[in-house]
């Protein structure tokens, strides 16, 4: 996995709560046997009329060229529902490296972290504040310091991340590397189990 520390970018505001993984990537696109190319179907049914790529819905934020960036800012309870990791793959493939929300569903959070996408959980008031800024505003996420900053005003908040997970992201390690390294201990556990 790629090492991550600081992400500085404009953001796409998606002011909707309870965005479930069926919206992020509808089930009909889960038939691939590889992890590639899911970005083009990200938020498919919110992006296009009648599933037609030639008919983008003008009101949807990802169809508005002024909104660009590596950060998606969404309403609370982001990523609820199905455990499909394809949701994290499609966000990453589309170009998002950070998702900001005031509340994340558990499985989505793990899936994001396992793919080097940082779920940044902020307070409800801070989230509201971010939504007040327009398309040219930028946010800075500093993983080492665990801060998210609205660059225009310098307002920032600390966010939580498990220390182990943080080190994995900073160093580009994943859980499998670790688990394989403790195989002897796992086998010893099995023998006394």
């Amino acid at each position, binding site marked *: 996995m790629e090492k991550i520390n600081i992400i500085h970018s404009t953001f796409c505001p998606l*002011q*909707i*709560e*309870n965005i*479930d993984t*069926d*919206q992020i990537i*509808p*089930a*009909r696109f*889960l*038939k*691939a*046997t*590889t*992890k590639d190319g899911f970005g083009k179907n990200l938020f498919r*049914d919110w992006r296009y009329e*009648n*599933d037609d790529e030639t008919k983008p819905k003008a009101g949807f934020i990802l169809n508005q060229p002024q909104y660009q960036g590596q950060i998606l800012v969404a*309403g*609370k*309870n982001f990523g*609820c*529902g*199905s*455990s*499909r*990791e*394809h949701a*994290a793959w499609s966000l990453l493939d589309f170009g998002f490296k950070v998702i900001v929300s005031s*509340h*994340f*569903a*558990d*499985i989505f959070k*793990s*899936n994001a972290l*396992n*793919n080097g996408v940082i779920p940044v959980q902020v307070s409800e008031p801070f989230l509201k504040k971010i939504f007040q800024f327009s398309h040219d505003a930028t946010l800075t996420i500093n993983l080492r310091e665990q801060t998210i900053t609205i660059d225009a005003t310098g307002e920032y908040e600390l966010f939580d991340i*498990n*220390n*182990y*997970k943080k080190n994995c992201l900073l160093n580009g390690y*994943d*859980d*499998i590397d*670790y*688990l*394989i390294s*403790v*195989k002897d*201990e*796992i086998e010893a*556990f*099995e023998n006394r*189990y």
Partner: protein
Amino acid sequence: MASTLFDKIWNKHAVKSIPQGPSVLYIDKHFIHEVTSPQAFSGIEKRGLKVFRPKQVVATVDHNVPTIDQHLPIKEKLSRVQVQTIKENCVKHGIEFYGLDHPYQGIVHIIGPELGITQPGMTIVCGDSHTSTHGAFGTIAFGIGTSEVEMVFASQCLLQIKPKQMRININGTLNRGVVSKDIILYIISKITSGGATGHFVEFAGSVIRNLSMEARMTICNMSIEMGAKGGMIAPDKTTLDYLEGREFAPKGEEWKKKVQEWKQLKSDEDAVFDKELNIDAADIQPMITYGTNPGLGIAIDAMIPRTEAIADEGERRNLVKALEYMGLNAGQRLLGTPVQHVFIGSCTNSRIEDLRMVANVIKGKKKSDNVHVMIVPGSQQVAKQVYAEGLDKIFTEAGFEIRQPGCSACLGMNEDKIPAGEYCVSTSNRNFEGRQGAGARTLLASPLTAAAAALTGVVTDVRELMRSVIYGEGEE
């Protein structure tokens, strides 16, 4: 120190803990299916690894499979490739595979319990959020992503941070027409679709104790719909009676030994939970959802909340958006709303008791001409039972279409989909936008309420049809 049921199972499976970090949690059983496993297999292969403990993995196909003509090759190419891929991967890695031609095939969360693979005290994972179903047996069971499937393939372990714990006690007497689906829809409507995030939930109380195993599975199945990491119920005599004699359940001396072990599996009297919720069964009525997440549910005869009554701006905006998608109005009642489809199936409600419940309501009657009814047994074993009991005749005479086992119209992934703009009373677990097909409008309800809608063609209070007969479930 007093421990919870969750603590006891967790502690037994913790291989080690990383300081300030997660624990290495040993996994007893790993269920896999065709959709969330292929990238995990290629992942370990890229690392030059084999599946570490193939005998602890059980595979089936359910999400993608057609529910008619299962003896023929799958028509749709991508689905066919996925189904073929899991088969090849299982052969390569020595994993037990229940394909479409196997008598044990079915929805992964139906077959684990019915075959006796799911046993008290286990840790169980699957790349599917409804893995929480298995918690009904007193297990730590939860859904995982594909990277985690790969981790379990590689090491039979997962790195997990211990979740917080919540207990929900349901006591009192259930009202007529109220079944376990209503209990869980009621709970989710009270605590919202994110209300249990970060928590593992134990369901307890006299109402839970009096439920059958199948009814308990429905409750644990939907614990993910309130955001819970998983749901669980302490094993008891009901659990043992269900398990004994099943294909993969322990036998003879081994059974006796296990039973002694399982008897310890309950939360200590003075165990403390991070959160505790008490529910009076008398407050629960037959439930139905009106919105686009499972928390947006009401009693069948209640009114959809008025938007102006909602103080939180975000929630209000959500409700407006949900009602627009659903084509419903704030303040209206759902009773009498015409529906075009009824779907009876899914890992929530496709077990034999669910189908018997439906048969009881519709026996000797015909479905409404305006509604298309699909009834989809959860597994080949359930299907066999349906025919053995003659329920198929009741369904066919009523004009229901009996399909073959699979996830079917629960998730709009296979051929079974609800057309855009049309309403479906569904016994499944999610009413998200487009869940049953792009533009489909899902009303989640119990098998009883689904059966009632099938007969009348409109949203109906099943108690109106029941008169003197009580169609309960789980009566021992």
